[in-house]
Structure formats: C-alpha cells, structure tokens
C-alpha cells in the first residue's frame, strides 16, 4: 500500500501496461522528454525508451490518426491529447474514424486504442483550456468513455482501457492531478462499465463523475451533519459502457436522484441518465430528478467567476436540501 497522487497514478498505470505488453506504445506532445505538461508521464521515456514513448509535433490529427493506423495493424497505442478542449481539432477520428470502422467494415477493422486527455476546470485557464467535454464523446456509437476520480481508479480503469478491444477515451481531471489516495502494491486492473457506490445512503442518490465526486461526497457529509439527510453517492466512472443497474437499484432504494455534472447544461451526461431513470424507475421516484450542472456558458477565467460556474459543495448541498424539503 502506498499513497500516490492522481498524477503519479497515470504514469504507474501506463508503466504497468507497457511492462506487461510490448505492443503498448505511447505518443503525444511533450509526453516523453518533458514528462507531460501536467507531469503525469514522468519517467516513462527512461523506462521504456524512445521507440515506445514518442514525442510528436503539434498535430492532433496525426496523433489520433497514427494511433488508429497502429491499432488497426496490431499495436495498442495510448495517445495523449494535452487538453480535452483540443479534441475539437481532431474530432474526426473520435467521431467518424476509429469509432465507426469496426461497424462499417462488418467487423474487419479493430481499433484497440486509448486516448488520454486532461479534462475539466478549476485551474483558471479560461474557456479553451477548462472544459468538461465527456458529453461530446458520450454521444458517439462505438467509442467508450471513462473518467476516474481517484488515483486507484486511474490505474485500474486505465489498465482496463488499454486491455479493452474497443477505442476508449480516458478523461483525466486536471484539478485532481495533485489529489492523493491509497493504492495497493502490485497489478491493478478494474472493469469498465461499473459504477461505484462511494457513500451508501438512504434518502437520495447523487450521481457524480470525476471532480464532481469529491464535491458530492463533501456535500453529502454536510447534508448529513446539518440537515440529517443521508445521501448515497455513486461515482459513475464510465459513461460508455454505462452501469445503469447500480444507479437504478440505488434510486429504487432512495426514491430521489440528483446528477452533479461539470459539463455545461445542454445534453450533459446527466440528461441521458435522468431520461433512463424516468423511463425505467418512474414509479420509484418520490420527487423530480434534479440536474446540478455548470450553466450553459463558456467557462470564465477569473477565480470568482469560475468558482460560481462549476457546481460547488455549497451549491450541491443547497440544491439537494431545498429540493428534498420542497
């Protein structure tokens, strides 16, 4: 058992998979010699050498295109897109190419690859370096979408993503890189498509992802302490595949559901979850499902503004308290 940062968990997860399988290769901008702009890939070049850990030019299309070509001919590449906002520059590969090639070719083309990317706000980077864009990817058939909230999950879900035969986009939250957590020694492999109940409770279900998980947990503690309300918090972890059974079972127990989403309001991932719950658990509900999201705005840079935009512990607490007592 060791205490590890979320940042160091990324490097450990990649190293675990590269040690295991020589077909795993890693490419991206400044990931090798510099160890990544978030220092999440320090040491990999030294450990695995320049043939397997390769710096690229600022060519996001070339990075994802090359990852696809390598994957479809036998390698298992991990490609880094530095900030998730930049996937807009190479969205073709996510939306049209490696997500669809298996289907279009009647199963001939296989693309076992992972796109890792720094997602989310809180660092005062402004509207083009702070977005939570997991919902952009959730809508693409053929792509899997994962977003861990703890160092342990970073390793386990990254390993599962690398070993998965389908293309996976792996959202690392930039504001979680410094967060520490306990991680056991030895190999760690988790399962995609499994949500985790991170705080059991009986009065309401809170569905959260990535940085919203620690905030939902903090809100749940406050609701308990200040209002005697006992919330169950579920870390969704994987948007595709989606573990609806864990969520539906929780809602059946609690009768209320809240989503806490960092993405802007429209078509955020919570909308899909709420629609599933409305379809399949309507008669379990004792009140309306409520979505707590970033408003439908570009993210501002100034700390006072950004803090107001992204769901805070205070806003989560207040929204749930008001809704439950209405």
């Amino acid at each position, binding site marked *: 058992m060791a205490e590890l940062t979320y940042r160091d968990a990324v490097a450990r997860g990649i190293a675990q998979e590269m040690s295991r399988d020589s077909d795993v290769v890693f490419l991206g901008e400044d990931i090798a010699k510099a160890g990544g702009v978030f220092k999440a890939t320090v040491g990999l070049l030294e450990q695995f050498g320049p043939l397997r850990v390769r710096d690229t030019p600022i060519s996001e299309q070339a990075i994802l295109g090359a990852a696809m070509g390598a994957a479809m001919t036998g390698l298992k590449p991990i490609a880094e897109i530095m900030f998730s906002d930049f996937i807009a520059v190479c969205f073709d590969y996510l939306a049209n190419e490696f997500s669809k090639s298996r289907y279009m070719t*009647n199963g001939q083309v296989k693309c076992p690859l992972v796109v890792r990317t720094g997602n989310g706000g809180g660092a005062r980077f402004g509207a083009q370096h702070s977005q939570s864009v997991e919902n952009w990817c959730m809508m693409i058939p053929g792509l899997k979408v994962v977003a861990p909230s703890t160092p342990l999950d970073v390793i386990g879900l990254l390993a599962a993503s690398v070993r998965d035969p389908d293309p996976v986009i792996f959202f690392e939250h930039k504001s979680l890189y410094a967060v520490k957590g306990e991680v056991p020694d030895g190999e760690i492999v988790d399962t995609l498509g499994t949500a985790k109940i991170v705080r059991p409770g009986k009065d309401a279900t809170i569905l959260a992802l990535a940085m919203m998980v620690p905030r939902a947990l903090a809100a749940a503690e406050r609701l308990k302490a200040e209002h005697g309300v006992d919330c169950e918090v579920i870390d969704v972890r994987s948007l595709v595949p989606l573990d609806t059974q864990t969520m539906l079972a929780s809602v059946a127990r609690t009768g209320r559901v809240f989503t806490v989403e960092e993405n802007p309001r429209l078509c955020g991932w919570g909308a899909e979850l709420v629609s599933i719950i409305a379809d399949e658990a309507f008669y379990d509900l004792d009140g309306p499902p409520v979505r707590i999201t970033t408003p439908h705005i570009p993210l501002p840079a100034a700390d006072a503004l950004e803090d107001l935009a992204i769901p805070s512990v205070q806003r989560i607490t207040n929204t749930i308290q008001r809704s439950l007592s209405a």
Partner: protein
Amino acid sequence: MAKTQTTAAGPSVLVRTNDGIDADLRLRMYRSQVQIREAEQRANDLFLQNLVKGTSHLSLGQEAVAAGCAAAMQPGDLSFCTYRGHAHTLARGVAVEKVLGELMGRDNGLLRGKGGSMHLTSIEHGVMGSYAIIGAHLPIACGAAWRAQYKGDKDVSVCFFGDGTTNIGAFHEALNFAVIWKLPVVFVCENNLYMEYTPISEVTAVANPAADRASAYGLQPIMADGQDADAVYRTAKAAFDKARAGGGPSLLEFKTYRYSGHSRADPAKYRPAGELEHWKANRDPIKIYRQRALDSGISHAQLDEIEGSVKQEVDQATEKCKAAPPTSVDILCTDVYADGGWAWRN
C-alpha cells in the same frame, strides 16, 4: 536514382525504361485496368437501373494509377483509399462480385452492406479501408507504417488521395509526421484536375498540388503520367522499394483525369468544352496501354482474350449480385463493439 527535370508543367522525374516490365506483368496490368473499366461501367449501369443506391465515385479514366500501383505492391503491403476506392480495391484482388454486391446492398457484398460504396475494405487483401472524410486516412497510413517500423515488419503503407486533399490540414500533418519519424509510407496523389466541381488550380496556391508541396517537407518532388501504367508502376516501385529499405516516405503525384462526374449526382457541366473528349481520344490509359502491349510484342489475340474474360467475369458477378438476397436485417446492430454487439449499458 531517378533524375529530376523541370518542365513547363513543373518538376517531373525521368524513369529508366529497361527495368524489367515483362510480358506477364504487362498483361496483368492490362487486365487490371480493363477490369476496373468494366466494373465501374457496370456500377454506373446498375445505378441507372436503380439497383445501386446512394452515391458512387467512379475511377473511369484513372485506371492506370490503381493498376500500376497495385502491381508495384507486394503481398502484405497496405492500401488506404478514399471514397473513390473501387479501383484500388479491385486492383488488390478483391472479387468484382464482392464490390458490386456491396454497392447493391446485397448479402454477398464485401461488407454485407454496412459500409457501402465509400468504405470498401478487405483486410485479407491489404485494403485497409476507404475513407470518406477528406484527408483522414493520411495520418492513419502513418500509424500503420509506424507499426511496421516498430515491429520490424517489411510492409509498406500506400495512401491514395486526390488533388483537392492537398489543401486540408491532415495532409500537411501527415507529411511532416511521416518525414520526422521516417516512416515506410508512400502518399499517392491522383491529380484528376478537379476537387469535386472546382478546378484544382482555382483553389490551390501552387500549380502541382502535391509535388510543389514536397520540398516543404524535405521530400523530392515526384510527378509522373497517371495515364501510363508503366510510368505509374516504375515511379511507385521506386518509392515502395525506398520505403521498404528504411529510406522513409515519398509523395507521388500522378496527373490523370476522371471521365464521369465527381459522383453520381454530378453531370460535370463545369468542364470546358472538348476537355473530356480530348482525354478520351488522346490520353485514355487503356488505349495507351493496349498500344504499349502490342509494341512490346504481345498479340491482339492475347489482349482480346483478356477483355473477353473480364467481360464474362463482370457479367457473372452482376448476375450473382442480382440473384443475391438483400443484406440480412439481423446485422443492423452487430459489430459496434468488439463483443459483436451494440450494448452501451447493462
């Protein structure tokens, strides 16, 4: 080494002529061109009969590029094609029936109707896909070449695209990437003078859309006559040999011409009067090659025999496709994910 000369039309490469294109190879390249011509014409006929739906981008007039390049490739080499990919798919040995069946949405189609005209793929023939987003497959070909380099495999990745594709970012990203990593990839530009409905010269900063960009990436400008399968073969072979030997990527530009409109929807009214007729009369790749074959001592009878057998092959394929059932609706939701299904939730 080939010598580079600059002509009024821009840079070009002189290639040696006594480099062993024997009768057997010549007959193969003739057959390949005739097969593409017949199959593409048949695809057009079937469209007029409403048996082929959707769109199709034909390579009538461009047969020599596909035939010459495929002949220069080795088994195991990889082709990356565009939506105008029937010709390259056939040239690698995929059966006419499989191609026509796919265009007709039949169960015997190459992809059982899941891809259609623009996505022909046959991994077992090295046809790694036909890509309908302009430029997307150039970086993908780089990735396949990276795998070959990393694993020490000896195959070359060959990526075909049009003149219009030289103006999209992915073209430039891929060239730079291939050069800095010294990848075994060959980029083949089929300059058919038009990007969709617009003359390429009206939308491109340089006269030769691919060759004039080569120097920006430290590559030799290489151009050849795309209507002459021998010239294509020699130019391609030199580039493939270089890539296979670890010499890195090449960018080739073949000047050619398409006889039909850009796609089914296009009557090609934008062409100047007489242009199509000029190319058909003077620059037709099959006419040129028939004469080349005769000049090299191949007989009329041998060439007629090829034409007859190709016609028969295309007729038989057509009949099989007409008789084949429409693709099974059972496959609507298969192969979205690796487990064979489409489940995104439990």
